[in-house]
């Protein structure tokens, strides 16, 4: 048999085809291809290779036909065959012969049963699926009567045993229809019906086996109702109706956005539609247009991803969005390929054997329902995300996740996890390393590269509000900003070289989108916790560094002690030392002199025990000199701040401190002046007792001075206790509780603002401040007036004493005590002096009057002030209602406010 084996199965098959059909090779090409496919798809036998079983079956078959002699003959022949040993696959040949065997007693059924055999054989044999592999073992051998069963069914009617394939068999119906035909031809006609059903589909797809429409259409064909799958594809020209199968094929292309043969993209309507010239039933047209929506949606998504995937500026978030869209599309393509292969299988089968598994438009409509919903979601997303990038895009996607449909939500969640992955990566890089790797400006923290390190904390980093993904709250975003800012601040400003990992026990960052998804699902929990932990650790570390290495709190206290005059002994001593210097015109002052005095003052007082770090920052500063200024007007203390400290004590803050210092310094000076005035009064009171003519003036002086002392004391009390101490206490509490640097800065700013407004330095209380300044001026003027009074009085006193002494001396020398001439001169001088007294008196009165009117105005303003503490101040200043009695406006306004308060109650 060696030579026999030389020929390939294909060659053999071809000659078999020729032999059986009796046609030339060219003519049988279609049948041959079919045969090759069937054989090829079924190469492995599905039956048991047992020669014995096969022979037994053959014998049984023969016995059944009551051919005992033939059975004996077969046994003999079989024995002979076994002895030959030429064949290797005896069972195989025998099985073939068995399955081809026919009952010779029913010759007429021979042709007819082919259809039936084939119809049944095909689902069993032509399929290559495992489903069919499993079956025949039990079927062919399990009850071992396959052939007989077949013949039995043939003998009766195919209907009951063949079920849906009944039409394929030689049923009585066609026979009755073809009553006029002889039985042979009737049996011969029946198969075409079967074959029509069987061959239509493969014929339409693979012309290899097509028997040609002309031959396939039997006489009774047109009357048959089952026309659905009849029309092959080539029929789908403008003349005839398009078959559903052709539309299915088209639709599968349209699903991918490719124009089909009949269904094309219509540019004017922007949708897929069947060419109106093509004849197709309305329902098919509707169904296919519904299906072709998928193609349109697919195109939309595709267009977006294609346009964006090459756009580098679109950023990482956008890229991952495109990637997620691609992923979804890939799933979609996978489905399409399954559909395609299903169609291919149907084509290959060549027969419309199993209508339940066929692709139809309706079936597609059902199958594609879910994908359509998904694609619709994607398309809507694409629409919504148009022109967005970065965090904005993530917000847009997130907005779509808020739906009740769990499938859609899952889809959007998946996309969101991919989209937010880069954002979360930015975030972790930022909060753990302080690095901003945001090339495309997608993250919600923005950095301004132009800002120098001294303004790093305030200006360098900011939130991009539009880029904050909606799943991150504003509070979280602020914290995130703060964390990274703190790290950068530590590195760049504090020159702290601690590796970021040590500040926060670095938790693992999200490496995969899956982690991101997990995190997203637990935004309130784990994510918040992570941010909080990082925030807490970083801020605490930063504050520690600031306090430990940069003495932030000490500086804060130093501000209070020096710039807000908290260190009483030092300020007093400084004023003592500076007094002669500052009395001079401002232009003659020299900074180095004053600095020297300052150092002396520091060394002489408790300030010397302060930290060197603080003392070396203390300095003198001279304000701009305007003509006529004295030293008092331009002198101020200064405190140098730099480095990290300057972040809290900014330039503006220092400006505020300067203003407050000037105000306090002035008020302090008033107190100082009044002390001098009082000292003068005490010292001179006894001396001037000898001049009774002065007592009126001096009394006036005393009254005015004590009025002023009362006023200034109350002012000082107010400033010290109501303003400075209260605000300081608040500030200190806040600073102690502060969690991050921003809290401290905010608290400090609040502190300064309160001080400024309470010290009447803000714009609202400008008029009050002017009044106060005027009062201060009056005090200075009073000092001058009283000084000159005392000077002239004391001069006079000295002269009078001198005159008396001279008289005494003359008497002792035995001379005339005084000459008339001297006497007259003395008298004249005294008279002149006494004449100046009323002048002084009136001057004082004017001064008093002026002063009092200013104070009254001041009080009026105070009572109308909105600040409660200022109203209390007015009450304190006018405790015994001294001014109220004099000023009708004051009475009215106080009454009014009281009345108002009553009505409020």
């Amino acid at each position, binding site marked *: 048999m060696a030579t026999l084996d030389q020929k390939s199965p294909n060659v053999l098959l071809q000659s078999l085809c020729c032999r059986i059909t009796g046609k030339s090779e060219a003519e049988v090409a279609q049948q041959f291809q079919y045969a090759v496919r069937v054989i090829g798809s079924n190469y492995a036998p599905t039956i048991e290779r047992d020669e014995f079983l096969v022979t037994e079956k053959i014998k049984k078959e023969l016995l059944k036909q009551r051919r005992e002699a033939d059975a004996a003959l077969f046994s003999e022949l079989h024995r002979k065959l076994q002895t030959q040993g030429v064949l290797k696959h005896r069972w195989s*040949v025998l099985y073939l012969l068995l399955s081809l065997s026919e009952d010779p007693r029913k010759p007429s059924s021979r*042709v007819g049963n082919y259809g039936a055999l*084939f119809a049944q054989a095909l689902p069993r044999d032509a399929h290559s699926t495992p489903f069919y592999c499993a079956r025949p073992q039990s079927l062919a051998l399990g009850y071992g009567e396959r052939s007989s069963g077949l013949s039995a069914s043939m003998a009766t009617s195919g209907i009951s045993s063949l079920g849906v394939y009944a039409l394929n068999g030689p049923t009585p119906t066609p026979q009755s229809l073809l009553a006029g035909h002889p039985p042979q031809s009737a049996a011969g006609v029946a198969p075409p019906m079967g074959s029509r059903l069987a061959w239509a589909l493969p014929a339409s797809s693979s012309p290899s086996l097509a028997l040609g429409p002309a031959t396939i259409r039997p006489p009774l064909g047109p009357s048959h109702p089952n026309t659905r799958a009849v029309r092959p594809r080539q029929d789908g020209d403008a003349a005839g109706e398009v078959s559903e199968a052709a539309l299915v094929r088209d639709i599968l292309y349209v699903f991918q956005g490719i124009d089909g043969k009949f269904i094309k993209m219509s540019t004017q309507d922007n949708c897929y539609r069947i060419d109106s010239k093509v004849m197709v039933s309305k329902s098919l047209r509707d169904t296919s247009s519904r299906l072709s929506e998928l193609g349109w949606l697919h195109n939309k998504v595709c267009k977006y991803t294609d346009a964006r995937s090459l756009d580098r500026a679109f950023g990482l978030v956008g890229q991952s969005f495109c990637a997620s869209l691609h992923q979804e599309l890939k799933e979609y393509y996978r489905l399409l390929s399954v559909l395609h292969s299903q169609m291919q299988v149907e084509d290959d089968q060549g027969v419309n054997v199993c209508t339940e598994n066929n692709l139809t438009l309706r079936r597609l409509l059902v199958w594609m329902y879910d994908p359509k919903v998904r694609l619709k979601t994607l398309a809507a997303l694409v629409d919504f995300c148009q022109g967005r990038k970065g965090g904005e895009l993530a917000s847009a996607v997130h907005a779509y996740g808020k739906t009740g449909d769990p499938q859609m939500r899952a889809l959007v969640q998946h996309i969101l996890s991919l989209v937010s992955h880069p954002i979360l990566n930015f975030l972790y890089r930022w909060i753990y390393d302080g690095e901003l790797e945001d090339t495309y400006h997608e993250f919600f923290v923005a950095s301004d590269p132009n800002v120098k390190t001294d303004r790093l904390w305030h200006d360098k980093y900011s939130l991009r509000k539009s880029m904050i993904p909606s799943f991150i709250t504003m509070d979280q975003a602020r914290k995130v900003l703060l964390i990274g800012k703190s790290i950068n601040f530590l590195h760049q400003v504090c020159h702290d070289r601690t590796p970021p990992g040590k500040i926060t026990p670095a938790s693992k960052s999200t490496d995969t989108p899956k982690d991101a998804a997990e995190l997203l699902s637990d935004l309130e929990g784990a994510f918040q916790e992570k941010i909080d932990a990082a925030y807490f650790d970083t801020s605490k570390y930063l504050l520690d560094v600031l306090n430990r290495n940069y003495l932030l709190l000490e500086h804060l206290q130093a501000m209070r002690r020096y710039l807000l005059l908290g260190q009483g002994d030092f300020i007093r001593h400084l004023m003592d030392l500076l007094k002669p210097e500052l009395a001079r015109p401002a232009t003659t002052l020299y900074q180095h002199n004053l600095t020297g005095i300052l150092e002396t003052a520091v060394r002489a007082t408790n300030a010397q025990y302060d930290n060197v770090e603080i003392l070396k920052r203390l300095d003198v500063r001279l304000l701009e000199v305007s003509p006529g200024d004295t030293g008092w007007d331009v002198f101020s203390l200064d405190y140098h701040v730099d480095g990290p400290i300057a972040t809290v004590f900014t330039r503006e803050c220092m400006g505020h401190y300067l203003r407050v210092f000037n105000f306090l310094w002035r008020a302090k000076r008033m107190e100082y002046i009044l002390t001098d005035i009082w000292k003068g009064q005490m010292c001179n009171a006894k001396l001037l007792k000898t001049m009774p003519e002065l007592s009126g003036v001096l009394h006036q002086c005393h009254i005015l001075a004590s009025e002023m002392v009362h006023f200034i004391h109350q002012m000082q009390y107010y400033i010290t206790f109501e303003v400075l101490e209260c605000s300081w206490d608040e500030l200190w509490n806040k600073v102690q509780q502060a969690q991050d640097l921003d809290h401290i800065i905010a608290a400090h700013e609040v502190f300064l603002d309160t001080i400024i407004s309470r010290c009447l330095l803000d714009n609202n209380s400008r008029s009050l401040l002017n009044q106060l300044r005027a009062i201060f001026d009056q005090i200075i003027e009073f000092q001058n007036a009283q000084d000159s009074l005392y000077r002239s009085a004391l001069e006079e006193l000295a002269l009078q004493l001198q005159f008396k002494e001279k008289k005494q001396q003359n008497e002792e020398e035995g001379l005339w005590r005084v000459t008339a001439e001297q006497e007259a001169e003395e008298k004249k001088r005294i008279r002149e002096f006494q004449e100046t007294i009323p002048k002084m008196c009136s001057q004082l009165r004017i001064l008093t009057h002026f002063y009092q009117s200013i104070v009254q105005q001041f009080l009026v303003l105070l009572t109308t002030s909105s600040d409660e503490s200022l109203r209390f101040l007015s009450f304190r200043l006018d405790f015994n209602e001294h001014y109220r009695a004099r000023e009708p406006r004051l009475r009215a306004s106080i009454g009014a406010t009281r009345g108002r308060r009553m009505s409020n109650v």
Partner: protein
Amino acid sequence: MASASSANLNAVRETMDVLLEISRLLNTGLDMESLSICVRLCEQGINPEALSSVIKELRKASETLKAPENCTN
């Protein structure tokens, strides 16, 4: 075919004769040439089940080709 091999010529011929006899007994309708082709195919390990279905199909196809002719006649 059967005459291909000189060494086993007789054995093969005998075998084929036996098979032809069986085929005739079972009324398969195969002639000598078809049978020899089928045997060779089977010897190459082709699934006899599939082969039988192909043969039936081919017969049916040729019948259908003839049928209309019959009808028109």
